[in-house]
């Protein structure tokens, strides 16, 4: 069993192979390759326009690559090219084994239906039909993301920004995904709210052994959450490595500029 776990952990979950995307003559993303392992958190950092969001969309199958491919090791252990999946398979993957946390919670939530329904909906999509069990699981997840269960029947439009973001996380994690994509998850929040969310994310990621690809322009977020970091500029990966190595001993001119541009607290 333990040996099997080790073997499992030794196989990549997500593989990007020479991914490129161009819009006419503009190359938004050029020749990006990496392998992500179970439980590993990879931060993609860079300024706006560096191609990090384009890359995230390609990795999560929302944007077709101009060149290269993305493969994913499915729950049955078979690694498949995402482009070869049928629409139904891809949707199932998105609803079960993957999560996607948007910067703006309104993009990841249904703002007019209750918090409980927002969480329960993902369970119903994978075949849960027992109302009280769905509600139980939804309350459990609200508690785990530190939302008062008394607010379960309220719609997220009555929630604060921080609560909405935590609800979006609960909605994503309820189906027990192995891989979660995050696009600037702390982007629109106040600093104090950010700290709480980061702490929560850090614990959940470790506890659930999640693999995460997180796009952020905030190096402090990358340092706190990620094991590895990829620095992007002009659509290319300019530097990659262990997060503390890249941030404490940056080699490339652009990374040195990024690191030295942080204001001391």
């Amino acid at each position, binding site marked *: 069993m333990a040996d099997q776990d080790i073997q499992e952990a030794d196989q990549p979950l997500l593989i990007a192979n020479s991914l490129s995307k161009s819009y006419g003559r503009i190359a938004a993303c050029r020749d990006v390759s990496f392998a992500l392992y179970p439980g590993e958190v990879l931060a993609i950092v860079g300024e706006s326009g560096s191609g990090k969001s384009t890359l995230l969309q390609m990795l999560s199958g929302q944007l077709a690559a101009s060149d290269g491919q993305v493969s994913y090791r499915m729950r049955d252990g078979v690694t498949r090219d995402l482009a070869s999946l049928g629409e139904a398979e891809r949707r199932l993957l998105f609803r079960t084994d993957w999560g996607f946390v948007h910067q703006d919670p309104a993009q990841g939530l249904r703002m007019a239906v209750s918090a409980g329904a927002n969480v329960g909906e993902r369970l119903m999509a994978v075949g849960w039909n027992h109302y009280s069990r769905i509600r139980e699981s939804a309350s459990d997840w609200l508690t785990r993301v530190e939302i008062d269960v008394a607010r379960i029947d309220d719609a997220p439009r009555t929630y604060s920004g921080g609560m909405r973001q935590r609800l979006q996380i609960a909605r994503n994690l309820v189906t027990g995904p192995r891989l979660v994509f995050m696009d600037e998850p702390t982007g629109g929040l106040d600093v104090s709210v950010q700290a709480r969310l980061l702490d929560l994310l850090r614990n959940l990621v470790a506890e659930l052994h999640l693999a995460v690809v997180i796009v952020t322009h905030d190096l402090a977020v990358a340092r706190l959450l990620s094991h590895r970091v990829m620095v992007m500029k002009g659509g290319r990966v300019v530097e990659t490595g262990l997060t503390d190595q890249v941030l404490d*001993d940056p*080699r490339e001119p652009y990374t040195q500029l990024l690191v*030295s541009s942080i204001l001391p607290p």
Partner: protein
Amino acid sequence: MTAMIDIADAGKTFTMHLQGGIELPVVRGVTFQVQPGECVVLSGPSGAGKSSILKMIFGNYRCDSGRIGIRHRGEVIDLATAEPRQVLNVRRATIGYVSQFLRAVPRVATIDVVAEPLIAGGVTRADAQARAGELLHRLNIPERLWRLPPATFSGGEQQRVNIARGFISDLPILLLDEPTASLDAANRAVVVALVAEKKRQGVAMVAIVHDDEVRHLIADRIVDVTSFAAAA
């Protein structure tokens, strides 16, 4: 006997691209070994590269040349060329680092800051907290502070929390960067005792210590870093 740490001809230069590409040589030809149960203290004036060497052994700074051999689960891994995943595995199972300052996550209670490395290593939360409590007791952190995050503690208290966190695991290699810098005599003595216990357990240690008395008490051997000074 097989060395736990075997550094051969390691070198490090910073290239400052924002300052017109100035090359800042830090160390070169770093060569020494550390055996199990041995504490090697790095000596040399400030700026000689002691902390840089410690960071190279932890894989925090990259080496430009040479090799950092680490005995990890019965095999030797060269951290100078290891993949990030291997470096993380080595840190999880083999090398601990007690930095000078605590880099605490907001909101996390002191007892959990200290217990975290054990929990990450698979110990149950209750057992990990019990051991964290013992260490905090020994380091004279009053129990009423354990539930608070250490961010508001004094410098000396934070350092003791950091030491507790560094000493709690049973890792076979420990790197200590001025572990007694802001401690009073009583707490310095506790750290000296903790180091002695680690030696008896066969832990290999590399330390930077400015306090002569503490250095004298914990060092089995002193490696003079000035001999690795990179010619400017």
